[in-house]
């Protein structure tokens, strides 16, 4: 029995066609004019306990609307959501007890106070037993080193520190499910890595189910096994990260440094996509051209000083999917 079950989820927005000004807004209030927009169009999926799932999609694709429905902020137009048997909207408060939410762009910490004050408050909001509170605080300090800035007012913290504190705050009550909305936005590389590592650890040790929305593909690659791609309100992919790489990341790029400048390379199936001095970037399909053959041929013809073979970044693949360059095979969906 999956922990999260979503069936035929639909969300229509009634967009207020707004008029400007006070009189205009009173008019819109009394005689509302609406435009319908389907933000989420018949989405279904299920997530098991302990899974880590990344939601990705371009802006306005419907992913944050979906997350808002899962967290009980929005009511679906139709379709069902069940989180461990509860409806996030109808059983909002009960459901909230089992949920942790991190909004990357918005903090839940009291701005003018040390973070520890918010933690103390959360202890009462979620009725966290003293023992668990202590345990978690120690754990979070070990992994995120939050104690070093716990007693400074939140407004004085760096973005990385604040995010660490925010994530700890959302996890304080041992939620069964955590939603991360852009958890690494604006962080530097080291801070990002620290956050990801922490997330992985918690998932492993506590078996917490985790859902992400993010723009940073690295977040997904480094934490999730599964990802759901949403575009124009529908799921266009639901499967493992490796799978999408294997199926669509079939091109390889060979970066070769030649002893002298070469004007043209004429090998079938190989395309020069960039050149810089004696260096050339050569793209080919891995099932058309064998790397070893290609290297052999190049060495024979021109000689090679140095070379590397690059796999396509998942980011590039996703970009192509959005742009319609890659057509997702229907059968691929829901492989897991």
């Amino acid at each position, binding site marked *: 029995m999956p922990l999260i079950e979503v069936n035929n989820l639909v969300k229509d927005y009634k967009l207020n066609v707004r008029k400007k000004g006070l009189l205009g807004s*009173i008019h819109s209030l009394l005689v509302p004019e609406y435009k319908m927009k389907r933000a989420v169009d018949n989405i279904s999926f299920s997530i098991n306990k302990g899974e880590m799932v990344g939601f990705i999609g371009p802006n306005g694709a419907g992913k944050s609307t979906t997350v808002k429905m899962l967290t009980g902020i929005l009511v679906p137009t139709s379709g069902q959501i069940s989180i461990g048997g509860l409806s996030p909207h109808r059983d909002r408060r009960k459901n909230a007890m089992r949920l942790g939410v991190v909004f990357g762009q918005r903090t839940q910490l009291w701005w003018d106070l040390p973070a520890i004050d918010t933690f103390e408050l959360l202890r009462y909001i979620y009725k966290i037993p003293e023992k668990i509170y202590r345990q978690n605080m120690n754990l979070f300090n070990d992994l995120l080193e939050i104690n070093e800035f716990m007693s400074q007012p939140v407004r004085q913290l760096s973005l990385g520190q604040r995010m660490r504190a925010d994530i700890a705050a959302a996890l304080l009550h041992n939620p069964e499910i955590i939603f991360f909305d852009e958890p690494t936005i604006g962080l530097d590389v080291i801070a990002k890595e620290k956050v990801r590592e922490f997330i992985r650890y918690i998932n492993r040790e506590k078996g917490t189910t985790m859902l992400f929305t993010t723009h940073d593909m690295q977040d997904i690659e480094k934490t999730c096994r599964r990802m759901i791609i949403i575009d124009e309100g529908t799921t266009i992919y639901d499967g493992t990260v490796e799978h999408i790489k294997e199926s669509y990341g079939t091109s390889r790029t060979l970066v070769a440094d030649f002893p002298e400048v070469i004007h043209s390379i004429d090998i079938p199936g190989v395309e020069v996509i960039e050149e810089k001095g004696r260096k050339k970037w050569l793209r080919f399909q891995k099932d058309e051209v064998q790397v070893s053959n290609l290297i052999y041929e190049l060495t024979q013809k021109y000689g090679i000083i140095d070379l590397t073979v690059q796999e396509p970044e998942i980011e590039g693949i996703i970009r192509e999917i959005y742009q319609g360059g890659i057509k997702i095979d229907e059968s691929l969906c829901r492989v897991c």
Partner: protein
Amino acid sequence: MGKKPLFNIFELFVLLLKYAKLSLKSILEYKFDRTFITIAIVCREMISVVVMFLILVRFVHIKGWEYNEMFFLYSFLFLSYSIFVLFFAGMRDFAEMIYSGEFDRVLTRPLGLMYQIIASKIDLSAGLGHGIVGVILFTKTAFSVGIDWNIKNIVYYIVILISGAVIQASIFLFASCFSFWTVKTDNLRNMIFFNARRFSGYPISFYPGIIQKLLMFVIPFAFVNYFPAQFYLNKAEINSFWNGFLYLSPAVGAIMFVLVYMFWRQGVRHYSSTGTSR
């Protein structure tokens, strides 16, 4: 399946105190600023008191109201406003929560929405500012207008102050609710509230009938200070009103709150079907 509440009354009360502690701590982060704001509010509110005082020094009484009675009437406005911003400032300012997206966070917490709104804010500066002016006026007048402060009168006084606070909170909450429909109403709200309050500084008998009706039935400020004051002063002009009005403030507060609460529920429903107001 019986619905067992997640929190009992006692837990909610303790949590309310925790929230209050954090609010007060936040305020104390800016001790100097906040003190200065309180002083400024006292100055601002004292202007109308001083004007009234200077007029009464010159004319002794207006329409049979002498200055102790006038200031006694006025003190209700300050004291009830003070209670209102100390306990219900969140209801006044909650439109900001919607604009900032903070309301989404409120929806993901295992607590009642109105509870969180009320718990989230204390406006100590305004509470103290208005409170100081109110206490000065009250102590100067309450013992020289012939009121016998027996138990009954004291209890009714407290009830009336709370009713006044609830009436004002309801007016503000009503206006804030429009933000669920993405309408900015700060101006309209301030205009309605503060103009009504301006009228209420003086006995409503000073005004033409239509304004009196407005202050009784539309923006019922008459139940914040005029009728409560008349309960104690019993000036002859009260005979032109129905006697029952003197006791009606708590009922007006309760009814207003219930109506506005229903409107608010409607707003929340609208919000959760449309999402952000941005």
